[in-house]
């Protein structure tokens, strides 16, 4: 009886298995797991490991161009390790401590500098910063700026022909003018807005938040959610972003529809920095890389690759759309002030917004 009873469909079973096995083979295929370029020449060349964030190493980001230009010049192998964002770089550094494999960290913004410095893991950059063209004076001997930008509200010209020209105007606007912001606890622009309002309003910041709150459509968890999921869907005519965002739309998408609103109180600055790791085996190479950061070969990838302002004067290499961006006054707290007060200010915001 069992010849009938137990007749199976081995073909079916094996086709299922072979599907899995095929996937497994595809998985073992090594070019999938590493850049071929990296594998090709792993000779005697020293390797420089740079911790950075996800969008920096994207195909269209500054990463590939920077890697190529630096490898030609140094005869070394530049390896990027991409983490989620600046705060993830700091956390990774903190967890790894002195045993970190990073030689350079690239992507710590001004608000992370204070905490990063306290780790005592980073070395002075020893780079001549005379070429820097930031709107503020930069004297730090550890953290070297590689790009900068201003936080701004980007508006949709079709939905909002006349954007507010100051914070006061935004706060006094009729209630149906909605803005999308992001959370200062989980997003960089969110923290930027918190500091911006604190800088403009000082002790009256909580009052300003209370006046702003009827205009807030929602507080997104991150910039991508705010900009992509909500703003691009037309949910509100204003979104918290960078003053350089319109450059991307104008240069790559060829549309003038999205512009940044210029506020007369001035705009808060964002400066992104790189630093060398003191315990690195390749400290000299790391410093070479930092010096390379302030050359046009690095900087020319910044404007459209990272959609930020370059840290030096690029001259004709600066894409023309950058001349059409707003040029407001800008200011910033020192990293020490942010490090000292961030918790209190976030608590103040929490209280003011839940009132």
């Amino acid at each position, binding site marked *: 009886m069992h010849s009938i009873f137990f007749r199976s469909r081995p073909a079916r079973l094996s086709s*299922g298995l072979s599907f899995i096995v095929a996937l*497994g083979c595809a998985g073992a295929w090594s070019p999938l*797991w590493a850049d071929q370029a990296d594998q090709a020449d792993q000779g005697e060349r020293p390797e420089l490991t740079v911790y950075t964030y*996800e969008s920096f190493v994207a195909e*269209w980001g500054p990463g590939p161009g920077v890697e190529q230009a630096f490898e030609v010049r140094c005869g070394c192998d530049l390896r990027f390790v991409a983490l989620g964002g600046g*705060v993830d770089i700091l956390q990774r550094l903190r967890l790894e401590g002195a045993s970190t494999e990073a030689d350079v960290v690239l992507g710590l913004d001004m608000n992370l500098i204070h905490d990063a410095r306290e780790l005592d893991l980073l070395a002075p950059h020893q780079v001549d910063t005379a070429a820097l063209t930031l709107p503020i004076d930069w004297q730090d001997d550890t953290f070297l700026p590689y790009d900068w930008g201003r936080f701004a509200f980007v508006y949709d010209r079709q939905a909002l022909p006349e954007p507010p020209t100051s914070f006061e105007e935004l706060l006094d606007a009729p209630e149906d003018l909605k803005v999308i912001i992001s959370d200062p*606890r989980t997003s960089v622009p969110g923290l930027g807005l918190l500091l911006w309002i604190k800088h403009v309003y000082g002790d009256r910041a909580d009052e300003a938040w209370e006046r702003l709150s009827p205009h807030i459509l929602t507080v997104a968890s991150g910039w991508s959610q705010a900009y992509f*999921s909500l703003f691009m869907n037309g949910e509100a005519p204003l979104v918290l972003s960078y003053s350089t965002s319109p450059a991307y739309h104008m240069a790559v998408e060829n549309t003038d529809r999205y512009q940044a609103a210029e506020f007369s109180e001035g705009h808060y600055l964002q400066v992104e920095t790189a630093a060398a790791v003191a315990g690195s085996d390749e400290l000299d190479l790391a410093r070479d890389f930092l010096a390379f950061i302030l050359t046009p070969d690095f900087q020319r990838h910044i404007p459209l690759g990272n959609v930020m302002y370059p840290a030096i004067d690029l001259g004709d290499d600066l894409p023309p759309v950058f001349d059409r961006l707003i040029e407001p006054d800008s200011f910033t707290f020192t990293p020490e002030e942010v490090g000292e007060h961030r918790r209190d200010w976030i608590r103040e*915001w929490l209280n003011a*917004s839940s009132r």
Partner: protein
Amino acid sequence: MTEGTPDSTRIGVSARPWWRGPRANRLGLPAAIVAAGLVLALGLGSLGALLWQAPRWDVARLWQEPYLLAIVRFSVWQATLSTLASLGLGVVVAVALARRPRFAGRTLLLRAMELSLVIPSLLALFGLVAVHGRQGWAAPLVQALPLGQANQSPDYLYGLSGIVLAHVFFNLPLSARLMLQALESVPTTHWRLVAQFGLGRGAIWRLVEWPCLRRLLPRLAALVFTLCFSSFAIVMTLGGGPGSSTLEVALYQAIKYDNDLALAALLALTQLVVCLGLWALALAAGGMPRLAGSASERSLGPGFRRDAFGLRRLTDAVVLLALAALLLPPLIAVVTAGLAGLPALVGDARVWAAAARSLAMAAAAGLAAVLLATALLSGCAALAERGHTAASAFLEGSGQLILILPAMVMGTGLFLLLRPRLGGDVEGYVLVIVVNAMMALPFALQVLRNAVLGLATAQRRIADQLGVHGLSRARWLVWPRLRRPAALALAYAMTLSLGDFSVIALFGSPSAPTLPMLLYQQLGGYRWQGAAATALLLLILVVAVFALLLGLTRRLPRYAWRGAHHAAPSVAASRLR
């Protein structure tokens, strides 16, 4: 077995290899203990590492920070509402779908249900906003409603209603799909009796559907609650303000900004306590499945049902249309957004390499999840058979640990544990696969549970008498009833890890991105169109995985001589009347 002569099998009982012998039947329990040990080591190990590193921690901080309590209260509240809505509506949908085994577009609807679970939250957000937002497709409809807000854009997407809507969008399809699977495994004989007695709606619910769903509901509720409790981007972005955030936000701050590992561990423990309490309740309330469809009998689903006519046609149509209206428009929004970028994507070798990488990792993670789940469940069955129900429930509960433990805590903890040895790219990928497998485990357990545990004692006794043991028993008794749920479980587990970004983000990525990583890179670089196209590719892969796996395991007529019989019950039943 098929080749062996009767003589050799009968005489050679002692000569057969050990893996076909009776002792091999008992392998289930050790395998389950190994699996549970692995999960617990990973989960508790990472939590322990965090506690170990934390300089000092006092529980009092939990109530010293008033906002933490508020967060916990809000999380419990929104998760409860979301769970009730998802399961309540899920029952209605599952019953309607089970009653209508054939209608145009049913398969399409099932595929859409599978999609909405695994669609990355950022895209789901995009789709939901495109449909339900203030400028969404549904806005004109809502404005047309006589509710007085004729000239105002609808705001229901922001606030508690939006959170619940999004969670229902994610979890209703999951729960309805699993309930449908349970309903479809009701033995054909039951449905024959229903037809013969001409049972009405109330009686079918009381005697067939409710007993079948009742065993499933507590676990499903715990699963959905856990998912909603720990949801992050959805709750924050649709919540409207800082009042609506989850523990993960506090956790994120503690780990990433404040380097307050003590607080992080404390928060993780809080989440663990809340969710574990719920799971304990669920496991205690659930009980074991009693009667599941036997493998030899092809489950035909309902044949003739008195409750399938008249007004029911209308209500079923309304229910299914409502389901379609909930599920399809956001998916269509994502698909249409992606279509424009598709041509550019097809020519991009990097995208295809990323897709292959993602698929390979998903296959590994999915397979591991299904194997772990099968091992755990067979151990549960062995324990339950011996009357150790508590131990059995504990074993099953251990599989849920990773879901309850916040990913950020696990990532940080694992990192601390493995720190000196986490250099190479490959190790990073392996770790991602392992963690993804653990994260998919609760889903695999849900799907496989009935198939593994429902093996009736009678069938086991017959197998004992026939001397079908070990591997043979697994192949001939267990596998036939396991293959279809296993395919569904594998599909769910694979697609979960296909769409997962959280784990990869924890360990950092080398130069070779997976598909979700590519998606986030594109978003970070303003590449909306490319991101939407990548998302579309992700959705296509998910559909392909489901279609392929379920297609490969579709039940063929097993007994040729009964082929003519198959269409019979409904016809026979209707003649009997």
